[in-house]
């Protein structure tokens, strides 16, 4: 009964979303207040209905209702409760339901926190969100119904993929989806402004906190995914240029560009067309990401067994979204004013270069990701584009950004003198050269790439200090926006430290070890003690014991595991990691090499990963910077003004 209720709520939500997508938009065009006023309650209704549907699916997982096909396929009675509840998004149907649930959540947030916006604007934004929700809900209902029944119900469900039985599953997909879906708000604001023909500073100011919020979630989601892959997959890598990673990285890059271009639009009124295009692009890339993940067209670690019908549906949705928004843009763009003029040397120009580089980077990732599809579609053979392509293209495009990030915040809006900028920044250049020469020696031996990377870090960090000195000379306290920018840029520097050092000084070794053997890696020694059998709640495991030494002193004992879920058909490697501020030491079990597993030889993988945690630390700082920036009172000022006005009227 409960699953039918869920399906019924889902169907109702589709109709409610359609109504939300039609009435308020017409109301805003024809100026019918009652129809516009319909937007807020309709948004609440859609949210409630999807929430009910989502709760029903969760209940089915909680109560082990295996008559629901999706539950039977992704959960069983032996699965711990935490994973049963997060298994709701462990497969295709449920993760799409989560997608629309979050979209409804964002829409509800817009409805709640938009008291200061004009009614027509609210109606349009919520209307556009309603249309997007209707599209995605139709997708769920017609191709991916999570409430399908199976008769007779199986006594026990299939196990959840063991890779997904990790705390990573609990946090990573929801965070990532929050980010993906969040760009729909920036998209809806851009489309509404286009429809209304009001691309102004107010529109940019309304969009900024939403865009930044989505970007924060996406940053955290990608970082969590990377950390999960590092921990769980037993590969020890943090980024693989896997198509699905790329799918989340492209909207991130474009979102970062959008954040910067919105700043220009708000402060100076320039870049309006460009900002709108970026907002459309960020959301379209989010949809494209969903398509790539869900259609199974690419070889990827994320590819689930899939149904081509689904891919075509999303592709059509993507075509409708991109096509109609670009047509709207083409119709309205000529009327958009150009905004404030600026000189060649100015903060605007630097931000423009930042934008061009970020977009080119995103385009190069897009090319590498879609190229195999195009070649295949043309019948020219099956190919794969490997990490070397992405490294060769991406890194050179990013290097100028690292140089510019120090200059941009130092330059004045509208017009600046190159001499003035050089006058302020030369100490950073000196520090950069010193850092490039001295630090590689300290870090582990001379290396050109390390010198370049650390010189750039020196440059960025020194510039941050100089910018702060410059800022504090001026009157007035620094705003949260400014602090947010500084923290995020510092996060970028921390990230570069991690990437530079781990790429150049890491050691990775696969070795054969017998109990008593010792292996050297990165000035540390692992001593293999042996392996014993162990039993988990829903798996059997071989647990290895390794002593970690440094300079002959025992640091700790590590226990990597080789687990077997589901009658030995699903082996799973649990790596053991000694985490440190300046290095991680990583050990995982490969296969047993002799018949005697407890006392025989094993294939063992040992890694030394210097500064690897700085990569995620940098990402966290970037997200924190975004968070600080959103807290700026300026975004809520008009709320108070509106409240004061309303009070005066009353």
């Amino acid at each position, binding site marked *: 009964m409960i699953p039918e209720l869920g399906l019924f709520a889902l169907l109702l939500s589709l109709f409610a979303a359609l109504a939300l997508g039609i009435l308020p938009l017409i109301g805003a065009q024809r100026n019918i207040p009652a129809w516009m006023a319909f937007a807020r309650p309709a948004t609440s209704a859609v949210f409630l209905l999807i929430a009910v549907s989502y709760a029903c699916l969760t209940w089915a997982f909680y109560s082990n209702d295996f008559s629901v096909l999706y539950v039977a396929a992704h959960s069983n009675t032996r699965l711990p409760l935490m994973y049963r509840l997060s298994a709701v998004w462990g497969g295709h149907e449920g993760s799409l339901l989560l997608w629309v649930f979050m979209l409804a959540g964002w829409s509800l947030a817009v409805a709640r926190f938009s008291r200061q916006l004009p009614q027509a604007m609210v109606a349009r934004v919520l209307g556009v969100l309603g249309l997007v929700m209707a599209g995605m809900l139709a997708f769920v209902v017609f191709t991916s119904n999570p409430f399908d029944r199976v008769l007779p119900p199986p006594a026990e469900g299939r196990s959840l*993929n063991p*890779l997904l039985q990790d705390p990573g599953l609990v946090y990573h997909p929801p965070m990532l989806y929050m980010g993906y879906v969040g760009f729909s708000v920036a998209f809806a604001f851009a489309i509404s402004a286009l429809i209304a023909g009001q691309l102004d500073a107010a529109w940019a100011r309304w969009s900024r906190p939403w865009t930044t919020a989505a970007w924060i979630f996406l940053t955290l989601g990608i970082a969590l995914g990377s950390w999960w892959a590092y921990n769980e*997959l*037993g*590969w020890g890598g943090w980024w693989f240029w896997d198509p699905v990673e790329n799918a989340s990285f492209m909207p991130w890059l474009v979102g970062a560009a959008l954040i910067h271009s919105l700043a220009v639009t708000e402060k100076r009124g320039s870049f309006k067309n460009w900002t709108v295009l970026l907002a459309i692009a960020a959301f379209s890339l989010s949809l494209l990401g969903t398509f790539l993940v869900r259609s*199974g*067209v*690419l*070889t990827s*670690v*994320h*590819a*689930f*067994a899939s149904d081509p019908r689904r891919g075509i549906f999303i592709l059509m949705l993507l075509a409708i979204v991109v096509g109609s928004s670009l047509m709207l843009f083409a119709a309205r763009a000529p009327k958009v004013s150009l905004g404030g*003029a600026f*000189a*060649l040397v100015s903060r605007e*120009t630097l931000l*423009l270069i930042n934008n*061009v*580089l970020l977009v*080119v980077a995103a385009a*190069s990732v897009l*090319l*590498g990701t879609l*190229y195999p599809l195009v070649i295949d579609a043309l019948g020219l*053979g*099956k*190919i*794969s*584009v*490997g990490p*070397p*392509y992405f490294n*060769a*293209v991406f890194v*050179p*495009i990013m290097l100028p950004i690292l140089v510019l990030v120090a200059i941009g915040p130092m330059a004045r809006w509208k017009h600046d003198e190159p001499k003035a900028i050089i006058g302020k920044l030369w100490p950073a250049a000196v520090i950069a050269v010193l850092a490039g020469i001295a630090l590689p020696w300290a870090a582990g031996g001379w290396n050109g790439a390390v010198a370049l990377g650390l010189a750039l870090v020196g440059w960025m960090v020194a510039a941050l200090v100089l910018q702060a000195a410059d800022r504090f000379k001026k009157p007035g306290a620094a705003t949260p926006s400014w602090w947010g920018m500084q923290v995020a840029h510092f996060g970028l520097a921390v990230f570069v430290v991690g990437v530079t050092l781990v790429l150049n000084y890491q050691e990775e070794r*696969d*070795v*054969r070890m017998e109990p008593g053997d010792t292996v050297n890696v990165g000035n540390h020694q692992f001593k293999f003690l042996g392996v014993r059998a162990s039993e988990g709640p829903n798996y059997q495991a071989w647990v290895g014991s390794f002593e970690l030494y440094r300079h002959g002193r025992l640091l700790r004992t590590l226990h990597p595991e080789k687990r077997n879920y589901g009658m030995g*058909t*699903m*082996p*799973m*490697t649990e790596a053991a990691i000694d985490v440190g501020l300046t290095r991680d030491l990583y050990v995982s079990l*490969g*296969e047993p*090499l002799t018949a005697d597993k407890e006392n025989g*030889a094993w*294939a063992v*993988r040992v890694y030394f990963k210097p500064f690897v945690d700085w990569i995620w630390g940098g990402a966290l700082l970037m997200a924190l910077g975004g968070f600080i920036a959103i807290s700026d009172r300026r975004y809520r000022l008009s709320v108070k003004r509106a409240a004061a006005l309303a009070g005066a009227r009353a």
Partner: protein
Amino acid sequence: MKPRHKRIALIVGGLAALGVAAAFVLNALDSNIAFFITPSEVAAGKAPLGKTFRIGGMVKEGSLQRDNLTVSFVITDTARDVKVIYTGILPDLFKEGKGAVAQGRMNPDGTFTATEVLAKHDENYMPPEAGHALEQAQKAQKTLKQ
């Protein structure tokens, strides 16, 4: 600077950046593409010598052999076989009788040395390339019978 000069400077700068980026991209694409080749195509001599490519199909039952860290196994598309040699730890879900994709180069003796054996996420998931190889072989066999 006059507005017109500014615009020209911006356009020239943009084009230069685009040109450099395009050069990087094309160069990198050219040298970093791995073609996918089925075991039947290898047997027909279509494998590029001295170039990295991918091969996929089923891991033949009973073909997996281990010598410490060096493993060898046979990848088959049911019509033709290729022996693959790999040093290192195989991914968790690598199994005889299941689909697999390996990336590496051909040796002069007709064996294939893999630098990477691709992992997959789900035990029921067949890498599309491996599935493609099996399909091709089945099609070829049907045409032969007719």
